[in-house]
């Protein structure tokens, strides 16, 4: 039977065999009956008599066994037979039978889902919450939860919640984690009550049982939603147990632990930085754990550990598994957005291995790196030029083509590489690669027309005349007509301004509030997600950028429109009075970015102030006092510290960038360099803005010194 054979024809004999006194035989017969009752409902009814007789057996074990199996017979019409034994089971003196009977209520309800809920049963179950046996109590909660599902489950009011909290210590770890989960539904009336509950739960936070620890942490995060400090404290105290889970002997548990650490990192990346070595991969671990660990390592990078983490990741790059090797290369690339130089060295070194999958992953990483960190363009182009192996997979080809198109003027061999691709066009299958080839050849034509003209002609001819794929043909037609409108126009459209991606690197990944992920903590969802953050997305290819730029021109952000419709105050008034700064509606990142790119710098000067060492929150608050709004700060430990702020005065909008440690201004020596852009221009407002800014910064610095 357990091997999948159908032995239902023996049912009659089994019914007879059930009238035995041997418990082992009884159990096996019941197992058989429960499995096949659905097939033979008429014969199963014959067994009911024996079962009902067993329900009155003096031995509680037999009573419980019979009742449980009777409730498990899933067939129509059974309810009329089981109702009476269940009700008497609820009042049985043996807790074993009561446990079975309580869950029997839920089973009975699921057999007849559309009937009225019997209020007397519900009341009895609520009363049994006070049962001395902890399992009976928890089973009551489970049964009520199922029976009352349509009404939103079991009601957790204050007396019940407090009763459950007080009994928590008597329960075993499974029941504890389940009760803690149900308590999520309770919201305390006052802060006093809240803190009483939290201090009661405190010990469970460091429980050696991972389920209890995780359930407690989730409850903490939920209850203390209004107290971020309490949440942070709970997270830091759960760090030890969570790290222990990440090193547990069971791989699956380890994986669950890692996934949850990843969630915590979304809010508190700094907490785990010093424990980065815990996330080094071990060679015996399966791939899915190693991938998670790499994702975590990327998040943990800071100035102290970057060298060691990179060294560790580098050793994964030559792994036998191509997936792991490529993931490790991508991870190095992501670290490269902050620590560009170190990572470029490693990546360039990997090209020397001349292995297809490594080369492809490195080229893709290069593409993303160039897009996010324009300062890496030079070394990347040099590395691409020195590499004589071309990637063979579609993704890698596209990345290489993008690099050749976007920075062809820096790669002397670019036309030859492209020519190779164009010669092999007939055997190329992927249409995405062909599209990329079109775009990059056209771009290269704009920067190096003499060398490229001939091959561009051939390419366009082939794509328009012989190509079967409609998208490629249309794209080729589009470019052809674009060229007809003249090279200047083509340049304007194809190489138009892109959004500035370095802005997103600068602001880094914002620390998300705990509430964003707290609801999925300790659920299955957290194990399925890959924790994809904004930086996990590959950089869009050039076609997308063109579209993005076009769309950006068409769709104006709401904040921008606000600006334009803002009533212009008469300048004479404003000039007479002091141009006071005013706070307006906040500007979105996108709108700010666009304005910043469109406008020219109207004023630039070195403020004779150093950067105040305050945390960003304090700075932001101080700025806000004088009506200067803040858009973004770079991290306090960044070598090149930047801040973007803005304010309004007398109908003009002022955008300012504060910069410390700018390489082109060596004489500033740690002083802040401020660049201001303005719309519309108004010099007096700028002067006023600068004096206010200086005053704030001076006050902050003097406070701390």
């Amino acid at each position, binding site marked *: 039977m*357990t091997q*999948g054979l159908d032995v239902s024809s023996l049912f009659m004999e089994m019914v007879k065999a059930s009238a035995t006194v041997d*418990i*082992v035989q009884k*159990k*096996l017969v019941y197992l058989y009956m429960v499995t096949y009752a659905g097939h033979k409902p008429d014969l199963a009814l014959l067994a009911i008599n024996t079962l009902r007789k067993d329900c009155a057996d003096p031995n509680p074990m037999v009573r419980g066994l019979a009742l*449980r199996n009777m409730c498990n017979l899933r067939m129509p019409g059974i309810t009329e037979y089981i109702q009476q034994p269940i009700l008497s089971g609820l009042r049985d003196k043996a807790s074993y039978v009561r*446990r079975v009977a309580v869950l029997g209520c*839920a*089973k009975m309800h699921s057999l007849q889902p559309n009937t009225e809920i019997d209020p007397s049963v519900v009341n009895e179950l609520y009363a049994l919450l006070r049962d001395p046996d902890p*399992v009976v109590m928890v*089973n009551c909660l*489970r049964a009520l939860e199922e029976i009352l599902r349509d009404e939103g489950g079991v009601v957790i009011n204050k007396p019940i919640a407090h009763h459950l909290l007080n009994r928590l210590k008597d329960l*075993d770890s*499974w029941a504890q*984690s*389940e009760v803690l*989960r149900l308590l999520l539904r309770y919201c305390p009336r006052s802060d006093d009550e809240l803190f009483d509950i939290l201090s009661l739960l405190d010990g469970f936070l*460091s*429980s*050696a*049982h991972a*389920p209890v*620890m*995780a*359930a407690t942490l989730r409850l903490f995060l939920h209850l203390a939603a209004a107290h971020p400090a309490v949440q942070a404290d709970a997270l830091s105290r759960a760090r030890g147990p969570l790290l*222990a*889970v990440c*090193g547990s*002997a*069971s*791989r*699956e*548990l380890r*994986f*669950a632990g890692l996934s949850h650490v990843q969630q915590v990192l979304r809010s508190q990346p700094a907490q785990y930085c010093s424990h980065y*070595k*815990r996330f*080094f991969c*071990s*060679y*015996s671990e*399966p*791939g*899915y754990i190693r991938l998670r660990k790499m994702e975590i390592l990327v998040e943990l990078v800071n100035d102290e550990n970057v060298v*060691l983490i990179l060294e560790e990741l580098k*050793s994964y790059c030559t792994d*036998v*598994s191509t*997936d792991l090797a490529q993931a490790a290369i991508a991870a190095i690339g992501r670290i490269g957005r902050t620590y560009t130089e170190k990572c470029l060295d490693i990546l360039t070194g990997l090209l*020397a*291995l*001349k*292995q297809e999958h490594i080369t492809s992953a490195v080229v893709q990483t290069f593409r993303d790196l160039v897009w996010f960190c324009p300062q890496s363009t030079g070394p990347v182009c040099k590395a691409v030029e020195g590499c004589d192996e071309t990637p063979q997979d579609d993704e890698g080809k596209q990345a290489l083509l993008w690099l050749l198109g976007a920075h062809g003027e820096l790669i002397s061999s670019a036309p030859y590489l492209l020519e190779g691709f164009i010669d092999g066009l007939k055997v190329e299958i992927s249409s995405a690669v062909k599209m990329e080839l079109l775009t990059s050849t056209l771009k290269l034509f704009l920067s190096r027309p003499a060398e490229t003209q001939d091959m561009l002609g051939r390419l366009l001819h082939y794509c328009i005349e012989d190509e079967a794929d409609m998208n490629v043909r249309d794209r080729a037609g589009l470019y052809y007509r674009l060229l007809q409108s003249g090279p200047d126009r083509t340049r304007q459209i194809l190489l138009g301004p892109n959004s500035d991606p370095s802005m997103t690197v600068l602001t880094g990944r914002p620390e998300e509030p705990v509430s964003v992920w707290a609801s999925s903590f*300790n*659920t*299955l*969802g957290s*194990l*399925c997600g890959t924790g994809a953050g904004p930086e996990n997305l590959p950089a869009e290819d050039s076609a997308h950028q063109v579209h993005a730029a076009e769309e950006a021109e068409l769709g104006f952000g709401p904040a921008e429109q606000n600006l334009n419709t803002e009533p212009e105050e008469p300048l004479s008034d404003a000039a007479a009075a002091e141009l006071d700064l005013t706070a307006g509606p906040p500007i979105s990142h996108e709108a700010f970015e666009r304005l910043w790119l469109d406008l020219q710098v109207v004023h630039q000067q070195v403020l004779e102030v150093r950067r105040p060492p305050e945390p960003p929150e304090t700075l932001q608050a101080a700025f806000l006092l004088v009506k200067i709004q803040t858009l973004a700060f770079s991290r306090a430990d960044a070598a090149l510290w930047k801040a973007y702020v803005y304010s309004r005065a007398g109908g003009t909008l002022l955008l300012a960038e504060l910069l410390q440690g700018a390489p082109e201004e060596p004489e500033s020596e740690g002083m802040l360099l401020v660049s201001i852009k303005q719309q519309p221009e108004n010099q007096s407002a700028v002067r006023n803005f600068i004096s206010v800014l200086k005053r704030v910064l001076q006050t902050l610095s003097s406070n701390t010194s």
Partner: protein
Amino acid sequence: MWFQIKIKSSLCPVYPGDHLIYKDYRGEADKDAVSIFYEMVTALSGDQPPVVMSHKDLNFIHVRQGGLYWVASTKTDASPFTIIEFLNRLAALTKDYCGSLCEKSVRMNFALIYELLDEMVDYGYIQTTSTDILKNFIQTEAVTSKPFSLFDLSNVGLFGAETQQSKVAPSAAATRPIMSHRSEQGGKNEIFVDVVERISVVIGSNGVLMKADVEGEIRVKCYLPTCSEMRIGLNEEFSIGKSQLRGYGMAVRVDECSFHQAVKLDEFDTYRILKVCPSQGEQTLMQYQLSDELPCAPPFRLFPTVEKDYGNRLLIFLKLRCDLPPKSTALNVSVTVPVPKSSLSLSQELSSPDQTADLQLKNKAILWSIPRFPGGAQLSALFKVEVPGLSSASLLEVGPVSMSFELPKHTCTGLQIRFLRLSPTHPGLSQRWVRYVTHSDSYTIRI
């Protein structure tokens, strides 16, 4: 939270009908849930399927133990920790009751396992997993297959005389079912206390210790039918955390430490004594971690030389030193050296005939195995690998070297058990065993 359980053989290939145990607690899962899981596992190309897989609204969570898949499926968004921990516990209980965990033992004891499942979970809700409670309900006797072992023979004293060997428990002693005391022959009243540590180490190419973590636990495996209080004394200079140092001798320090909820700690602070009433079966009394600081040198040191020989030949010369104290020995040491992907063949010179080395073409690595490695000894091996198209860049592909081994009678933290007392003293029959072992979780040496 509710689910159903399947135990499947993972010995390839997996057949849809190849489930050993299947219990549907709710009657809500489709009949073909098993084959859905089978299809999902076989459809994946990777080395191991992810822990959680979903099909429509059905979630499958599995763990792998003893070469078997232990699968639970649920339709609710349950706590992953609970399900994984439960499946682990189920596997552990199966091992306790059947003696060992393998396809054969599960097949032979299917009635017992169904009985266990019936008592542990009702309607998809976990009722109890405690051995003390379960033993009242479990009636079936475990069936064991006893493999023939030379250990059994060596244990028989000459003419019945007590030999030194009979003072040492055979390694198979702790792999028998806990319930066998009912039967006549094997009913020994024994208790095993194991200190098991897993060490994970990364040594940099310059020989500097970059990472050293130890995860340890004290496990009790109890075959005593009635439980009496047991007192376990640890080293008196045992300390937890960085600040708390005790005594003047060699301190045994761990970073973090957690205990089973049944452990009474009233004498722990002053005398480092754990008190517990062990229930039958296996329990983990204490878990501890130590990171970044080992009290002693890492057990192995490697001195590698990798160079290009004439032609397409790569020379790898490894000198491996075991830094354990001379009386301890490392067993089953294996050294894995990744070699360039294009490697074809291998010739080797090893220092003794019991060692073996071969080139595993699938993993592109040399596997050098050493069955016994005494402390203080130094072994060397020379590998000549034929690599077509060898370039200087290929040398980058050699390494990092990883090792696996076990160190019996050795703990890296230095944790020892001073005494093990059962009170009230059990009538003479009971035998107490204390065992120490350190496993390599991950031992990586960069070249």
